[in-house]
């Protein structure tokens, strides 16, 4: 068959078929449009302010590599005035991070950005290898995930940086929406759709500039721009994506590529109906970003997708909901107003709260042990550490 021509420039050969709208694009037009869309997300969600110091959570993988490349490009093209730094976490898994850290070091040179590497051992006194030695391979993704989320914030803090961006993409968000839908956990679903996490109460803000970018396009962007990235399965979770929500997402994409963004948008729309929930999303709709702690973020960030809800998460979620239910009192009215103003048919959607009605008010505070922002007395990481340290003490006896 004759090669298709690019739908934009109408001269070059089309090499990409966009999953979101089936548009056929040449390499140059694809790269431009991909960058323009991330720029649009950044501007409409007001992610940055001029002169802001921003740490890019860098794993050496495709998402964070593309994020670093795109942010560097956009920062220069549009004069964001950002001071960008690469921030890497070393979980202490022999043979896993060694190579990927080399990739990050190469990225630091290529993108001319300073690099800071923070180890689990210096943050927690435990490498992941030691954690696995103690608790076995089952459930270690939970530890890894909880530790990693704090590690980025703590690393940023060490650098005096108040904003960490991560490479979470549309597939990641869609996966989280689906998993929480399957669990019937609408409050968590709504939080997971937020583009910004953390607020004035937290020391470090988190955001996901690639939230609307398809994983497929991220891989193609890396390929066509010849970006160097590193891939390996986390050796402790090689089966992570089998039979998972992730697998389901990919199958849906194969049948109907727009599914992924449709799920993300659905998640955002459902979020607006959940008490105290974020709406986030493209700021075009003039929504506000809701506060939430970084530790509520569910997406695994490179360690596969099967990481379960961390221990204590149920209690934390319940505590938060108690608080949110109180704060959310006017929301249903707002939603009704919004709907009316859009001339949409009036609907009543019952909101099911799995928890009892509010009895106490939870105040977001700081972990008693480490000072990290937490809705509980002791944060998730410290709770896990307590258990680990008890185990270590027993072994030593």
């Amino acid at each position, binding site marked *: *068959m004759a*090669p*298709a021509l690019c739908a934009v420039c109408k001269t070059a*050969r*089309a*090499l*990409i*078929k966009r999953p979101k709208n089936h548009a*056929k694009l040449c*390499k140059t037009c694809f790269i431009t449009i991909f960058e323009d869309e991330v720029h649009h997300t950044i501007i409409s969600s007001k992610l940055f302010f001029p002169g802001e110091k921003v740490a890019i959570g860098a*794993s050496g*993988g*495709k*998402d*964070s*590599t593309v994020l670093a490349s795109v942010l560097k490009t956009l920062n220069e093209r549009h004069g964001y005035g950002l001071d960008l730094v690469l921030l890497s976490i070393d979980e202490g898994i022999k043979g896993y991070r060694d190579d990927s850290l080399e990739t990050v070091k190469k990225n630091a040179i290529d993108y001319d950005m300073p690099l800071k590497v923070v180890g689990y051992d210096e943050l927690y006194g435990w490498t992941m290898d030691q954690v696995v030695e103690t608790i076995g391979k089952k459930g270690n993704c939970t530890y890894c995930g909880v530790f990693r989320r704090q590690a980025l914030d703590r690393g940023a803090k060490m650098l005096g940086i108040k904003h960490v961006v991560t*490479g979470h*993409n549309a*597939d990641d968000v869609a996966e989280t929406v689906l998993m929480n839908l399957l669990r019937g956990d609408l409050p968590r679903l709504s939080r997971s759709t937020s583009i910004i996490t953390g607020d004035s109460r937290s020391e470090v803000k988190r955001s996901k500039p690639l939230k609307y970018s398809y*994983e*497929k396009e*991220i*891989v*193609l962007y890396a*390929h*066509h721009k010849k970006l160097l990235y590193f*891939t*390996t*399965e*986390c050796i402790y979770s090689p089966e992570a*994506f089998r039979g998972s929500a*992730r*697998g389901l997402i*990919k*199958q849906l*994409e*194969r049948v109907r590529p727009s599914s992924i963004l449709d799920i993300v948008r659905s998640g955002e729309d459902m979020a607006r109906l959940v008490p105290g929930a974020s709406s986030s999303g493209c700021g075009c709709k003039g929504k506000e970003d809701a506060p939430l702690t970084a530790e509520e973020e569910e997406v*695994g*960030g*490179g*360690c*596969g997708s099967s990481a379960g809800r961390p221990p204590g998460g149920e209690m934390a979620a319940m505590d938060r909901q108690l608080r949110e239910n109180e704060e959310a009192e006017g929301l249903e009215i707002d939603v009704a107003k919004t709907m009316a103003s859009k001339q949409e048919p009036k609907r009543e959607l019952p909101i099911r709260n799995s928890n009892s009605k509010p009895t106490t008010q939870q105040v977001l505070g700081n972990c008693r042990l480490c000072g990290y922002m937490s809705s509980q007395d002791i944060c998730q990481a410290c709770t896990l550490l307590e258990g680990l340290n008890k185990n270590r003490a027993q072994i030593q006896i």
Partner: protein
Amino acid sequence: MGDSAADDSKIPITVDFSGGLEILFSNQRHYALSLPAADKDGSPSTIKSLVGYLLKELIKDPRQDLFVLDGHIRPGILVLINNADWELEGEEDYELQAGDNIFFVSTLHGG
């Protein structure tokens, strides 16, 4: 291009694996292969034929389902034919030409 279908000579192509797929193929990213120009039934070799060949001859890792699921390329693996998305080229039914480069890249690994 059906004239050459009956020709039982070989087609030289190159195949690349990336995004973690190379792990399934002896950690080697690039292969130069010579495929039969036609299938047993005489029809021209396609991507589907290539995938059958890869499963039979090249994949060493027992986890074949990370590459092929239910007889098709696993969803989440991108296929580029001479750098173009295979969706623009007829996907599995694309008829291989001498000198083609087929690029398999997984999107499934951590980022």
